[in-house]
């Protein structure tokens, strides 16, 4: 029998490919904010040519990849499951003969696949065309970057799944998700490279899944040291978050309250 999950990956891709104008608008926003962020980093680097191993080319690459990965990893704006729990539509999802978490992950990977084409490649090409850019020097780096980006999507999915599943207990997960939006942006290395943070903060963050989202894939692309360990950390977080998510779904769905219809 055919497994439905590859087809769900494709459906996730197709669903998002439907909204091309929205993708274009989002891409424009990403580029504009990318220019602003690059300007800030370049201003810092005007004082000192290299900060924590990042020169101007590395900083431009950092920003281009970060802006591109933003919608691939999807840090913000995934409230679908919590909405379905709140409205009770989740009974449809729970009533299907599938592994709900695996099905949602499959659809999310399809979504990320479309985002790679529509939202990651253009800012990279733009950054490389308009500014000094740091391409990988070894071909293998591309493969490691692909693996790292994939793991970043899975880690992000794991976090989003848990945030959304909190609606089983809270009914309204908007507060929790909003808090993540603030914390996640700064502490995942999206705004400023984590290497620019104080030593103690870097140590503390290394114990969280946050660097797995942006810092690690970008550093893998920039061929900074410690690729193997970083990928292992990402894989560990991916597995751990998925497992915790399964437990949360199991317990959460047993508390499900569907009122009114």
């Amino acid at each position, binding site marked *: 029998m055919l497994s439905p999950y590859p*087809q769900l990956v494709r459906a996730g891709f197709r669903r998002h490919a*439907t909204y091309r104008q929205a993708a274009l608008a989002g891409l424009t926003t990403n580029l504009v904010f990318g220019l602003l962020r690059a300007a800030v980093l370049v201003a810092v680097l005007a004082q000192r040519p290299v900060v924590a191993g990042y020169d101007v080319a590395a900083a431009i690459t950092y920003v281009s990849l970060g802006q591109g990965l933003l919608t691939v990893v999807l840090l913000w704006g995934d409230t679908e499951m919590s909405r379905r729990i709140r409205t009770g539509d989740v009974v*449809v999802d*729970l009533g299907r003969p599938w592994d709900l978490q695996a*099905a949602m992950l499959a659809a999310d990977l399809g979504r990320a696949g479309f985002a790679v084409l529509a939202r990651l490649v253009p800012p990279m090409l733009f950054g490389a065309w308009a500014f000094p850019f740091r391409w990988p020097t070894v071909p293998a780096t591309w493969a490691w970057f692909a693996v790292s980006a994939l793991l970043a999507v899975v880690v992000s999915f794991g976090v989003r799944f848990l945030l959304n599943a909190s609606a089983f207990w809270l009914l309204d997960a908007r507060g929790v998700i909003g808090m993540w939006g603030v914390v996640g942006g700064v502490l995942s290395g999206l705004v400023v490279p984590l290497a620019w943070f104080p030593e103690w903060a870097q140590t503390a963050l290394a114990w969280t899944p946050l660097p797995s989202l942006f810092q690690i894939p970008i550093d893998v692309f920039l061929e900074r040291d410690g690729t193997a360990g970083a990928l292992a950390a990402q894989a560990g977080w991916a597995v751990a978050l998925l497992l915790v998510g399964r437990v949360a779904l199991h317990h959460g769905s047993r508390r499900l309250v*569907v009122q009114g*219809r």
Partner: protein
Amino acid sequence: MTTSGAGGASMDTERRLRSDHVIVTEGLGRDFLVGSRLRRTRVTAVTDVTLDVARGEAVGFLGPNGAGKSTTIKMLTGVLVPSAGSARVCGLDPVRERRTLARRIGVVFGQRSQLWWDLPLAESFALHGAIHRVPPARHRERLDECVELLDMAAFLTTPVRQLSLGQRMRGEVTAALLHTPELLVLDEPTIGLDLASKERLRTFLSAVNARGDVTLLLTTHDLPDVERLCRRVVVIDRGRVLVDDGLDALRRRFAGHRTLVVEPVTPAAPPAALPGVVAVTAEAQGLRWRLEFDSTTTAAELIADVARRVDIRDVHVDEPTIEALMRTLYTR
């Protein structure tokens, strides 16, 4: 339920399981805790639902808003965990074997969608088939049949979000049937549909049920749905089964009297004192009579009786409406 009674009840369940029942429940109940952590109140949605549905039956599951219909359905599909009692659906424990059960039942929620909003209808069907692991040849065959019977060819490539409600509901019912379920649960399937769409759906569902391999469990507030599709009616109120009987039997028990409408050839006063007749009215200047009769006589006897006295141009029997029946039941 007392502990001494539990053994007997489970034996009873066993006995019924052996016979060909698709749904067997025993004292099914569910309550919810609502309110804040400090001031929790316990709300009982379903108290005690004991119900058997045999293979191939079509059962109308009725009750006023808040009676516990949807909660019961969600327990039967394994989505809600019962807080009391037990249920077996297709011989399975709905909660523990939810995924296996999901392959064998189809569910249509009139107010929710199981289709993919952004994708063309045909792609939703393909995904649905993949999720249920339907072999492609069987999927094709089943889909072609539904597309033809429900006249969906014109909008198969339209994204679901652009479909009208009537078109979407046809899609929902198709999706629920693609994996040839043994039980089709319909929770208000005709809500919001216009008369033509309702009728089309009823005709289709009645054909599906008539083949005998799909059992129907239908909740609705649209009583013509029940009249067209169901021979048996289960009415619940405040979480308990109030009535469980054939629709005809219920009519006879609760809905008062049938009415024989007679049109005599020439205007006249209606005959008085016919046996079994409890009320007589004349309309249209004596060209139409309404003879309300009770169960001490039959329509045939009464027609013969009238025909002996006057020349009749036309007769028909008005059944008591199901609305009147439900009004009587809900207010009891």
